[in-house]
C-alpha cells in the first residue's frame, strides 16, 4: 500500500489539478454531503412540525434528561478530540499514540451509544414511544393532568427518529473504527506516508459529532 | 368535443383564457421558428460528398441574444401571471361580502353546507351536508371554505377555471363569481383513492330568486 508519500495521499493523475484530494477522502466528502441532505430533511421536517404543531411544544427538560445527555455530548465531543489527536499522531508517524488515541475514541464513542441506548430504555419505561405516549404510563398521567401538552405524540416521533438515526450513524462509526483498529492500526499498516483510513474515518466522526451538537441543541435545549 | 378551453362561466375565466392564449402565441411562435428552422437546416445542410462543415465553436454575441431574449419574455410572462395570481389567489383576494359555503370533502363525495337565512356559517340555521350539489347565485362572490375529512381532495370546476386542494387539517378558502347561469361539473383533481373518479358533483348557477327558493326547499330536507 505504501508507495511513497507523494503517491498515496495525492489524487492519482489529475490532468489539470481539480482538487488535490485523494479518492477516498473525496468520496467521503461527497458521502457527507449526502448525509447533510439526509439529516437536513429530517431536521427540516422536525422544525416545520414543531412550528406548526397545534398547541405548545413540550417544555425543555420536561421529558428528556438534559444533564445525562449533556455528559453524553461531552463524551462525543471529547471522542472527536481524541480522533484529532490520533490523526496528528499518525501524521507524525507515531504508531503507538495512534493506537491509544484511536482506542480512546472507540471507547468514548461506544460509551455514547450505550448511554443513549440506556436513555431510550428509560424513556420507554416512562412511556414515551415513537407513536406517542403509552397508556397507563407515567407520562400518560402527566398528559392527562395537563402538565404535558398533547403534541407529545409528535415529540416522541421526532425525538426517536432524529436521535435514532444519529445513534445508528455513531454505531456505524464505532464499528468501522474498531475494524480499522484491529485490521490496520494494530498491524502497523498505517504510516506517516499513508494514513488515509484514519483521515477518512476521522472526517466521518467529526461530521457525526457536529450533527449531534445540532441535534442536542434543537431537541434538548430549545 | 371542443378543441379549446371550456365555456367561460366565472369572473376570472376570461383573464385566465387571455393569459393562456398569450402564452400559446408566444410558445407557438417559438415552436414554429425553432422547428421550422430545424427542418430547414436538416434539408439545407444534409451531408453531400466533398462538402465539409463550417468549423466554428460558436459565437458569444449570439449566445447573449438568445439568453437575454427568452429571459425578458419569461420575466414579462412571470410578472403578468403574478398580477392575476395575486388577484385570484392572493392572501386578501377574497371579496369582502362573499357568500360562504362550506365544502366538506370526504372519500368519494362532496358535502356542501349552506349558511341559511342568516348568511353566516356555523349557526344552527345552516343547511348541512347537501351531497354533491353546489347551488350558487349568479354574479355574486362565493367563497368555498374547504376542509377534508380523510385524504387530500381538490375542488375543480373546469368551467370556472377554479381549482383548490382540500387538505385534511387545513381550512382553505377559494372564491369565485359565477357569471353564466347553467349547470356545470365539479370533479376531484387530486388522487384520493379508488373512488377518486366517482367524486362528481353538479354546480348549478341560478338567479338569486331561484337560489333562495331552492335553499328554502333544501331547508325542509327535500332536495331535488
Amino acid at each position, binding site marked *: 500500500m505504501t508507495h511513497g508519500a507523494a503517491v498515496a495521499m495525492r489524487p492519482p493523475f489529475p490532468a489539470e489539478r481539480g482538487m488535490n484530494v485523494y479518492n477516498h477522502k473525496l468520496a467521503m466528502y461527497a458521502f457527507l454531503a449526502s448525509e447533510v441532505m439526509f439529516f437536513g430533511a429530517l431536521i427540516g421536517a422536525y422544525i416545520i412540525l414543531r412550528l406548526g404543531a397545534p398547541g405548545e411544544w413540550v417544555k425543555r427538560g420536561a421529558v428528556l434528561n438534559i444533564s445525562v445527555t449533556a455528559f453524553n455530548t461531552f463524551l462525543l465531543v471529547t471522542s472527536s478530540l481524541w480522533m484529532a489527536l490520533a490523526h496528528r499522531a499518525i501524521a507524525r508517524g507515531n504508531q503507538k499514540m495512534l493506537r491509544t488515541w484511536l482506542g480512546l475514541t472507540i471507547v468514548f464513542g461506544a460509551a455514547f451509544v450505550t448511554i443513549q441506548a440506556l436513555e431510550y430504555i428509560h424513556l420507554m419505561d416512562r412511556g414515551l414511544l415513537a407513536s406517542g405516549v403509552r397508556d397507563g404510563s407515567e407520562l400518560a398521567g402527566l398528559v392527562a393532568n395537563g402538565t404535558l401538552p398533547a403534541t407529545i405524540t409528535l415529540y416522541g416521533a421526532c425525538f426517536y427518529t432524529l436521535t435514532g438515526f444519529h445513534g445508528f450513524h455513531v454505531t456505524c462509526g464505532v464499528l468501522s473504527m474498531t475494524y480499522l483498529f484491529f485490521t490496520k492500526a494494530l498491524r502497523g499498516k498505517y504510516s506517516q506516508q499513508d494514513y488515509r483510513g484514519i483521515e477518512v474515518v476521522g472526517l466521518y466522526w467529526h461530521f457525526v459529532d457536529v450533527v449531534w451538537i445540532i441535534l442536542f441543541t434543537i431537541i434538548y435545549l430549545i | 368535443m371542443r378543441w379549446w378551453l371550456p365555456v367561460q362561466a366565472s369572473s376570472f375565466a376570461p383573464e385566465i383564457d387571455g393569459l393562456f392564449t398569450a402564452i400559446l402565441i408566444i410558445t407557438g411562435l417559438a415552436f414554429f421558428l425553432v422547428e421550422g428552422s430545424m427542418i430547414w437546416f436538416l434539408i439545407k445542410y444534409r451531408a453531400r460528398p466533398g462538402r465539409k462543415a463550417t468549423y466554428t465553436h460558436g459565437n458569444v454575441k449570439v449566445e447573449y441574444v438568445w439568453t437575454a431574449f427568452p429571459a425578458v419574455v419569461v420575466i414579462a410572462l412571470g410578472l403578468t401571471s403574478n398580477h392575476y395570481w395575486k388577484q385570484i389567489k392572493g392572501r386578501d383576494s377574497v371579496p369582502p361580502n362573499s357568500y360562504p359555503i362550506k365544502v366538506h370533502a370526504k372519500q368519494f363525495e362532496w358535502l356542501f353546507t349552506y349558511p341559511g337565512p342568516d348568511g353566516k356559517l356555523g349557526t344552527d340555521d345552516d343547511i348541512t351536508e347537501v351531497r354533491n350539489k353546489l347551488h350558487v347565485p349568479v354574479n355574486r362572490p362565493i367563497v368555498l371554505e374547504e376542509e377534508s375529512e380523510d385524504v387530500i381532495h381538490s375542488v375543480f370546476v373546469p368551467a370556472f377555471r*377554479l381549482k383548490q386542494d382540500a387538505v385534511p387539517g387545513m381550512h382553505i378558502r377559494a372564491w369565485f363569481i359565477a357569471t353564466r347561469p347553467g349547470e356545470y361539473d365539479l370533479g376531484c383533481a387530486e388522487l384520493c383513492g379508488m373512488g377518486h373518479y366517482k367524486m362528481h358533483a353538479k354546480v348549478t348557477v341560478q338567479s338569486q330568486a331561484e337560489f333562495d327558493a331552492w335553499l328554502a326547499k333544501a331547508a325542509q330536507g327535500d332536495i331535488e
Partner: protein
Amino acid sequence: MTSVAATHDVGHAAHAPTGIWRKYIFSTDHKIVGIQFLFLSLLFLLLGGLLAMQMRWQLGFPNTPMPGGGILPESMAPGGVILPEYYIQLVTMHGTFMVFFALMPLLVGVFANFLIPLKIGAHDMAFPRINMASFWVAFLAGLIMLASLFAPEGAARAGWTMYVPLSARPDLSGADLGQKLWCVSIVVVGLSSILGSLNYITTIINNRAPGMTWFRLPLSIWSLFIVAILGLLALPVLSGAAIMLLFDQTIGTHFFDPAVGGQALLWQHLFWFFGHPEVYILILPAMGMVSDIIANGSRKPIFGYHSMVFAIIAIAFLGWIVWGHHMFMSGMNPTLGSSFMISTMVIAVPSAIKTFNWMGTMWQGNLRFHVPMMCAIAFVAMFVIGGLSGLFMAATPVDMQIHDTYFIVAHIHYVLFGGSLFGLFGAITYWFPKMFGRMMNERWGKIHFWLTFVFYNLTFFPMHILGMAGHMRRIYDPTQYDFLKPYQPLNQFISVCAFLLFASQAIFALNFIISLFRGRKAELNPWQDNGLEWTLPSPAPHGNWERLPTVYRGPYEYSSPQVEEDYLPQSRKLPTDREPAVLAGAVP
C-alpha cells in the same frame, strides 16, 4: 512503463477476472456493470410499458374485459375487467417503475458507468467494488418493488408521488404491505443511487487522463457529473421522507397525520424538494449524450461549448429552488407560489440556450442521418414542445386550469418519452458497438424510429387537448363526467395509438437482441467520433487501456482545418501538439 495507478487496490489491467462468476455476475468492470444495468432497466421499461397499456385499455374502453386480462387475479380484474383499485395501482406502479427503475438506471446507471472511465481516459471507476454494489443494491430495490406487486391487497396506490394521508393509512387506500414495500424499495434505490454518485464524482474529478482538462470533457460527461451531484444531494431527502412515511405506516408515528398535528403538506414539500432535481436527473444525461451525438452527426463542433456547460450548471442550481411549482394549488401560501413561479420561469432560459445551441450545431453542418442522429434530432424537436408546454404550467393562473390534468401528463411524456427515451434510443444504438462489438441494424433502426416517432406524437399530443378541457389525471372512468363524455373518442384514439406505439417497440427489442449475436461486426470507430472510447477495440477489454491515453484537444474537433478527415480524435498527437505538463510527483 506500465502505469501502476497509485491507488493499488484499483489494480485492474494486470489481472482480468476469468471465471463466469467474477467476469459477468459479480464483475467490478465498469463496462459489465453498465451492461448489467442496461438489461435490468430495459426489462423494467418493458414492465412499465405493460402497465401503461392496461391503463390505456381501461381509459379507451372503460369496463370492458381486457384481452389477456384473464391472468389477473379476481380481486384486481374480475373477468378481465380492471377494477378502480387496480387502476390506481397501475397508475402508481407505471410512474414508479418508469422513473426509478427504467429511466434513472438507463440514463445514469448504464451510461455513467459505461461512458465515464472510457471518455475521461481511466482504467476503471475510482471504487470498482462500490460500483458493483450500486448495481446489486439497485437490483435488490427492483426485486422489492416487484414483490410489492404481489402483496396480499396489491401494490401501492397513491400515485408515484405517494401523497399523504392516502399513502400513510391502509384503511383509506386499501393497501397495507404494498405501501410499506414501496417505501422500503425507494430507500434502497436511493442508497444505490448515492453509492453510484460517489463513484462518478470521484472518478471524474480525480481519474482523468493526462491532458483531459475540465473544458476538454465531453458534454455527456459534464451532464453525468452534474447529475451525480444532483443525485447525491436529492436522493437522501427522498430517503428521509420515505423513512418518515414508513414509520407512519409501521410504528405509528404521526409525522403526516393531520389529526394529531402532522402536516400533509410536509410530505409534498419533502417529495418535491427531491422531485424537481430528480426530473433534471432524468433529462440532463440525455441532453449531454444528445449533444455528443448531434456534434458527431453534424460533423461540426458543438455550438457554444462553454455556454452549454454553464447551462447545465444553471439548470442544476436553479433546479433546487423551483419545487413549489408542483404545489401551486396545494394550499401552500400563495406568496410562496409567486416566488416559485418566478424561479420556474427563469429555469426555462438555460433550456432555451441549450436548444438554440443544438440548432447552432446543426447550422452549416454536414449532417449524416444515422439512427442515433435521427433520435437526437427527435429529442431536440420533442424537448422543444415539452419545454414550451412547461411555460403554461409555470404561469400560475393558467396552472389553475391545467394542474393535475392530462396537460401535465402530456408535458411529462414529452420531456421523458420524447426527450429522454428518444435520447436513450440514440445513445444505445450509438454505443452498442463499443458495448457488444457489433452494430445494430440500420434499416430496422430507422423503421423503429419512424414508427415510434409517429405513434408517440399521435398518442401524447392529443393529451394537451384533454388537459385544456379539464380531463383530470388518474381517473379510472372518464365517462362518469358529463363534460368528459364528448372526449371519449379522443381517449379511444389515444389508446389505440398507445397500443401501436407499444407494439412498434418490439422492433427495437428484436433489433437489440438479434444484433447482440448476429449484428454486423463493428470496427474501432464506426461513427468516426473523437471520443477516447473509440480508440479502444469493440468491445473494450478489461481495464480499458494498457497505458492511459494523453489528450491534446477538446472532444468536438470535427471538420478541423488541421486535418483533411472531418474528425480529429482527442488522443491523436499532431506535430504541433505539446505534451500536457504532467504534474510533478503524480504517477501517470
